[in-house]
């Protein structure tokens, strides 16, 4: 189940962007989902995010986000409907409860809760895109320039993770060869078997960490500035994606300042489209955010375009 949340190189352009361009694009997408409360803007963002997910061949695994959102939506709906009393258009009066007071359900609360469910789906989808678009090593390499020690701890830990998972299976095998059957025995006996497995795993991991430290020292760890063997190239496509993301951010700030992209739910619902600028600003933001997706399409289908960027 978790495999779909992990990075898989599908040889797509979005997966080969410069980490700065990719992080800014994802950061802008994530930030905008939290800035906007306008239902049309959140739905528009969802469309762009889904197109980006499609561009990295990840639409199949995205169903998990949808399932998770459905589960959480129930909670968001329930609490917003039962607790929030700021709406004026009340459609149901319920009994008076000891802690919650008089139960009322308003149209405003329903609309707000539904919009927040879309926001949740947007946020989860952005993080899903992050998982599919950026390899952890790319991010760690980028941060190792500013925070060498922290990036090294993270990098070592990421490397050790699959190794330690294999180690659990290896130790289980060794113990079962020696006659330890993890499926047999009373609860207490089985617990003791797992206890010894955990202790062995801990001892092995700590012993290996000392060996790693010796290897690091042999390679002159902390004796001078950190060596870098790989240099990420900043290509025209990265410049285009970065410009598109930053322009989208500026247009968002403009839209928020002049209230073209804002929407108020309480005490009464505002107009979904208050003037034509609401749609114009939305259109510009969506086009700018779709720029990496359009470039990705061109990169895949047009050899000349591919060579130029």
């Amino acid at each position: 189940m978790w495999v779909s949340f992990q990075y898989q190189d599908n040889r797509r352009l979005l997966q080969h962007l410069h980490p700065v361009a990719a992080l800014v694009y994802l950061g802008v997408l994530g930030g905008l989902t939290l800035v906007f409360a306008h239902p049309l803007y959140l739905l528009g963002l969802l469309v762009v995010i889904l197109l980006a997910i499609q561009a990295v061949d990840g639409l199949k695994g995205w169903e998990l986000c949808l399932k998770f959102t459905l589960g959480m939506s129930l909670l968001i709906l329930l609490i917003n409907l039962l607790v929030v009393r700021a709406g004026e258009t009340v459609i149901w009066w319920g009994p008076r409860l000891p802690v919650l007071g008089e139960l009322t359900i308003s149209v405003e609360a329903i609309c707000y809760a539904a919009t927040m469910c879309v926001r949740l789906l947007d946020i989860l989808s952005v993080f899903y895109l992050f998982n599919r678009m950026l390899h952890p090593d790319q991010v760690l390499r980028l941060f190792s320039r500013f925070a060498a020690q922290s990036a090294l701890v993270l990098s070592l830990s990421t490397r050790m993770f699959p190794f330690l998972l294999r180690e659990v299976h290896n130790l289980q095998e060794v113990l079962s060869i020696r006659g330890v059957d993890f499926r047999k025995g009373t609860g207490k006996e089985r617990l003791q078997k797992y206890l010894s497995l955990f202790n062995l795993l801990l001892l092995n991991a700590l012993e290996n960490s000392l060996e790693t430290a010796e290897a690091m020292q042999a390679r002159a760890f902390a004796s001078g500035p950190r060596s870098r063997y790989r240099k990420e190239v900043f290509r025209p496509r990265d410049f285009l994606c970065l410009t598109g993301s930053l322009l989208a951010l500026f247009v968002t700030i403009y839209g928020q300042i002049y209230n073209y992209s804002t929407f108020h739910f309480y005490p009464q619902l505002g107009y979904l489209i208050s003037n034509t600028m609401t749609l114009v600003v939305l259109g510009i933001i969506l086009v700018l955010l779709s720029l990496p997706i359009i470039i990705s399409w061109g990169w895949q289908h047009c050899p000349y375009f591919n060579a130029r960027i």
Partner: protein
Amino acid sequence: MPEKIISFLLQLRPDWGLLSMGIIMVALVLFYWRFERYSITAREVALIAALATIAAVSRIPFAPLPSIQPTTFIVIISGFVLGPPAGFMVGSTAALVSNFFLGQGPWTPWQMWGWGLAGLLAGFIKITFPNTGSRGLLIFCFFWGYIFGWTMNLWSWMAFFHPLSWTSFIATCAASFWFDTLHAVGNVAFYWLFGPTFLKILRRYSRKLRVRQILWVEEG
């Protein structure tokens, strides 16, 4: 224009979802920046990474069980034995690395904060009360199950509920009460089962971190 910008900032202020995420990110950056200022040995780096990996890996077998995970107790013991900075690094790294495999989400910075803080506070407990025994750590493990849950609830409360009120926050915490209770009870059970051995092993390895250099000068 300046009035428009001020009104925009005032308008942004109630958007606590964005603001709280920003605050958590800044706090994490500050902690990592502080960690960068320490001169750290290769042994310490490798040990912190190994403990963070153990804490991260231990999430995998328990992933299908809601809120039961040994990560919290491993982070607390690490912080208690190795000190506040190492405790914070073990906790925050465990959250980030395990989510590289389980899936990153809006919960990642909050988990990094929740577990990082658990390790940090455990380290401070050791400094402030050096004689803290198993009973004290058991109580800390139990209460951190709830504090971790409330920390995680904070963001969902701020991002998805409006207007914010104590009633809606209590309702959010009430919805997660059984999950938090399972987490708290799980922490106690893990500490009770694995804690004493883990403490003993980790203390032994923490002593190995301290290396004394003896300068040998030959006469003549």
